[in-house]
């Protein structure tokens, strides 16, 4: 379980998140939604120690995460698929995968690469190419595979379907449901397509202007008479 208490965070002097207190639950898909610029990505980055935290605390199973370096947080079993710059463009796909498994033993990395390649055949197809030369969608799939490589305890996805074709986007969301059901890991999902995400999600968190304006069951937000229409473009 990830527990955030009174979090104020941002970038240097730019305050973005105000007094966020919430709980992300285990074995659940926790969906974070909100308008553009509302601080969704900043929330995920804060969990990973990539922002400036002014006050508040972030705990994972009771252990404080804020104050740790990103690589230490990674080693506690948290994986993260960033929204942008989520592959190393100057490295080949093979090197990207090797780096994704940096905390694992070499043999384990090779095994895991074989496994994720089954779901994401792009990896083998472009094995020796620089990741920077891939198309947006192909890159997104490599990034997704990188995040999954480590078999994390917590998986944070920042708009994983961002640049994917609708068919693939649906497959990715199905994959996320499957992750919850088979591995029982905690998933934190930020999605632009709020309706779809809330449909597969268990818990929902609505951020507006850096403040948490709703949290509860995702069904509740989906059926909420105003919030959905006001902020998420969900009608009726």
């Amino acid at each position, binding site marked *: 379980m990830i527990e955030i208490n009174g979090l104020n965070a941002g970038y*240097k002097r730019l305050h973005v998140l105000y007094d966020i207190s919430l709980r992300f639950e285990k074995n659940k898909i926790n969906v974070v939604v909100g308008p553009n610029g509302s601080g969704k990505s900043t929330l995920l980055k804060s969990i*990973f*120690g*990539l922002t400036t935290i002014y006050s508040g605390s972030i705990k994972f199973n009771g252990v404080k995460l804020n104050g740790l*370096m*990103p*690589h230490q*947080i*990674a*080693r506690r079993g948290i*994986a*993260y698929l*960033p929204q942008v*710059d*989520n*592959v*190393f*463009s*100057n*490295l080949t796909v093979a*090197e990207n995968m*090797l*780096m*994704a498994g*940096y*905390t694992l033993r*070499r043999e384990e990395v090779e095994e895991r690469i074989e496994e994720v390649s089954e779901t994401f055949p792009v990896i083998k197809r472009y094995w020796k190419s620089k990741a920077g030369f891939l198309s947006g969608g192909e890159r997104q799939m490599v990034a997704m595979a*990188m995040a999954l490589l*480590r078999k994390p305890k917590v998986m944070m996805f920042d708009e994983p379907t961002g640049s994917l074709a609708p068919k693939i986007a649906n497959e990715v969301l199905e994959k996320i449901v499957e992750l919850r059901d088979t591995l029982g890991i905690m998933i934190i999902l930020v999605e632009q397509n709020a309706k779809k995400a809330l449909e597969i999600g268990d818990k929902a968190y609505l951020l507006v202007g850096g403040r948490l304006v709703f949290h509860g069951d995702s069904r509740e937000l989906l059926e909420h008479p105003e919030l959905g229409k006001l902020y998420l473009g969900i009608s009726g």
Partner: protein
Amino acid sequence: MIPPMIRDATIFSCLLALLSTGLTLTYMTTKVPNFAHGSFAAMTTYITLILVKILKVNPYFSVGLGFILGGVIALILYQVILKPLLDRGASYIVLMIATIGYDMILYSLINILADYLNRTYKISTRLYILKSYDFRVFHQPCIFIVAPVMAVLVIVSLYFLLTRTRFGIAMRAAIENPALAGVVGINVNLTYAASWFIAGGLAGVAGALLPLWLMCNPDIGGRLIVSVFAASIVGGLTNIYGAFLGGILIGMAEVLGTGYLSLTVGTWIAPYRPIIPLVIMAVTLLFAPTGLTGIGLRFLRRSGKR
């Protein structure tokens, strides 16, 4: 017979290539031009002096010691000065000035060391050269063989480190995208510290070999730094192989250029030698700001290969 000017040029360009490769490596990690880089080498010239004149042993022992001392001096600059400043969000200018400050400290320490050695052991520690302590191999000074071998060895090892080892690939990953590197579990600070250690180590090796061919003085770092920056800039500042080529190019241009001008214009021109790297640097910045590697890419693109 090998003309002396070619020998001079070869030795100087190989040592310069060691220096510029390291400078570029640190520039790529921390994005700060390190003005103390020349003094890393100046410091280790004294290791060779001590080995030869005081301990009276083989001067080439200084290569290993120079690597370690150079590495440690660079690591201190990164870990004790630059890293804390970076963590506080210091600007590029602040970092740059910090390296100039560190250079002043090193320069003072070198002068103190020079005076101490001079008074205690009664040896000359300023404007000294150890050419006569070098060995001869195939009727050539040993340094004429060692400098090119060392340069090639270094660039080949760096290539293998950066492309064939997990830690080396992690160094490239951390240089490109430190946030993502942290996310996959790479200790970014460790990879940067390693880059600084290697860079300082290479400068230390260059410094250790310098006195076997060139006149050394505590201020040699300041005199070298212009050529080193020129070499790195010609190399494009973001590519260690470019920096290596830049070092060879600037070294050759400096020695051969000065030699040629001395013959044609007159020997009075020799002291103006630093103008050559400065001019090349200015021309590069004006007409090909991305350096040799940029030109290479553009050329490849035009010829449709890419």
